[in-house]
């Protein structure tokens, strides 16, 4: 009996804890915007989600972030919960271009507008608007710079992201669409490092055993580029092997400044997040026609222009302190 009482008290206590976590609701009940993001296990998406949520709050709405943990069925739960608990719009970063279609259609059926950020869903009439990062073109630009820096010849390694991720292949295809035209640029190894810094370091360490004479490494994101750089430092090859990344993460921007890695492709998560939140705001105010697809350019960052950039974006004119 005593034991049961104890557990009961514990239960009450944990409900109290949940109550404490609940945000205070204001009396006038502002409209609510849900931010459903594919994962919060990667700083890039944390940044995207936080900026979207912050912009929604700035525009006077209540906002909550849902983390799908790269799991499309968890994403379905989030959509159902968001619709059921009366969210009026969804700023959405899909887990999967195909798998997320059903979720978007679910929201549409409940007449909740969906604004996609960064990643697209493969349907033209589901989302109200899709604000997308142009990974493919970004990697074409990166490939062009790669060819130039390599003087059209040499051996290189490609580190892919998660092989189950659309972005991995968009980036790889963009890069190869250009680089493969140069027969003297030889890819000696293509391996996956799951977008992970540690994995990239270990994989490159092993690759270096088989191919000690490589000239460059192209990585599908900046975390892998930094891991690859770390492996090159350990092997004493950091000076003559060129590293290329993608994303525009803080570490990579700093590394380009220090001349450690060659280049990255800057995406603009803040622009995408804020545009999505602004569109939702305009939607509430009566605007109904939005561009179905709004590509956001990806910019090449190299030693020449790195001073114009900060982590995940361009320096504002009034942002000179960084």
């Amino acid at each position, binding site marked *: 009996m005593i034991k049961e009482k104890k557990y009961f008290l514990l239960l009450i206590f944990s409900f109290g804890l949940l109550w404490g976590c609940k945000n205070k609701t204001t009396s006038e009940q502002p409209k609510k915007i849900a931010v459903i993001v594919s994962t919060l*296990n990667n700083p890039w998406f*944390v940044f995207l989600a936080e900026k979207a949520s912050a912009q929604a709050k700035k525009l006077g709405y209540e906002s909550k972030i849902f983390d799908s943990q790269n799991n499309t069925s968890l994403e379905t739960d989030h959509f159902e919960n968001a619709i059921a608990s009366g969210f009026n719009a969804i700023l959405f970063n899909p887990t999967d271009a195909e798998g997320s279609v059903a979720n978007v259609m679910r929201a549409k059926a409940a007449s909740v507008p969906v604004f996609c950020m960064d990643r697209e869903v493969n349907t033209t009439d589901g989302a109200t608007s899709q604000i997308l990062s142009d990974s493919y073109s970004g990697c074409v630009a990166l490939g062009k710079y790669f060819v130039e820096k390599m003087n059209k010849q040499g051996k290189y390694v490609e580190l892919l992201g998660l092989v189950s991720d659309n972005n991995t292949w968009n980036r790889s295809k963009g890069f190869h669409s250009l680089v493969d035209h140069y027969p003297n640029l030889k890819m000696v190894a293509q391996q996956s490092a799951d977008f992970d*810094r540690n994995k990239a370091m270990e994989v490159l360490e*092993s690759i270096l055993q088989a191919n000690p004479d490589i000239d460059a490494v192209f990585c599908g994101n900046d975390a892998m580029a930094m891991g690859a750089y*770390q492996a090159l*430092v350990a092997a004493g090859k950091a000076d003559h092997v060129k590293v290329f990344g993608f994303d525009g993460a803080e*570490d990579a921007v700093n590394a380009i400044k220090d001349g450690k890695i060659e280049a990255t492709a800057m995406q603009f998560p803040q622009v995408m997040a804020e545009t999505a939140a602004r569109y939702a705001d305009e939607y509430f105010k009566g605007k109904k026609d939005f561009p179905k697809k709004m590509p956001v350019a990806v910019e090449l960052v190299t030693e020449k222009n790195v001073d114009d950039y900060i982590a995940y974006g361009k320096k504002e004119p009034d942002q000179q302190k960084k």
Partner: protein
Amino acid sequence: MQALAKSTPESNMKKYGSSLAKFQSLIALVILCLTISLLSDKFFTVDNAWNVMRQISVNICIATGMTLVVLTAGIDLSVGSVLALAGAITAGLLRNGIEIPAGNLYIGFTLLGAVVAGLLTGALLGAFNGWTITRFKVPPFVATLAVLTIARGFTMLWTKGFPISSLGENFAFLGTGWFLGIPLPVWISGIIVIAAVVVTNKTRFGRYVYAIGGNENAAKLSGININRIKIAVYTIAGGLAAIGGIIVTSRLDSAQPNAGITYELDAIAAVVIGGTSLSGGRGSIMGTVLGAIIIGVLNNGLVLLNVSPFWQQVVKGFVILLAVMIDKANSKND
């Protein structure tokens, strides 16, 4: 009567069987190495050997703790998250210290202080695992699954989801330095392995660990304080995961909020390939080390041979399955 049974043929068979099991993972390793070296002339080099040893050192740290846990018939799924949190705490304290705005207080941390704080974090989480498992009879699978999520959540809170980088050369030395021609992470994992072998084979604590896994009720009746041993085992597992976290963080010069995801599976795989029974009571640290080496050599070899990433997962899965199948066939013979 039991004592008399010592030299019967059956018990000799048992002894023979268990030494054969050890033998088998060793044979598997030799075959694996021979195959890879036939296909790639870059495999059998001193450089690559250190490379593999350095890469598996983190898994060896974790898997050693996991072996102790599995020997008590438990499991620890939280080690990957504990590794991430310990690494993040160490990196955060080293780089930023603690600021308490209310008291206008700033506490800076030395290298040693930050490392100790990271280790304590790991040990504390491990002790928490042990406490819920023994005090509230939560099954180890569930208790440590919960801590997997909790520790990952705290890692996110502490790092705010962003990596903590640029930790200084002294700290980087822990993971990248060499001492007497051997990489430091290999020293660290080697010392841990030797200590664990001594503890499991030569101490009363080690015998109790086996006894609990063999037959918990019998162990309890013979007067062993089961709860205390179990809490100690989970605390050690947490502490070793924290050491792994500090090595990873130091090697990368950066604490990643998503570090260590699925590391628990690599550790469990090493333990199982090494012939330790998931139902407890049977197995050895050296077996686990062999298991970790097999996984490391496999990872390394598949990359050296530039096998497609899709196929790598298939191959790894089959090797684990094969190892356990051999082990099962073996234990049936006992």
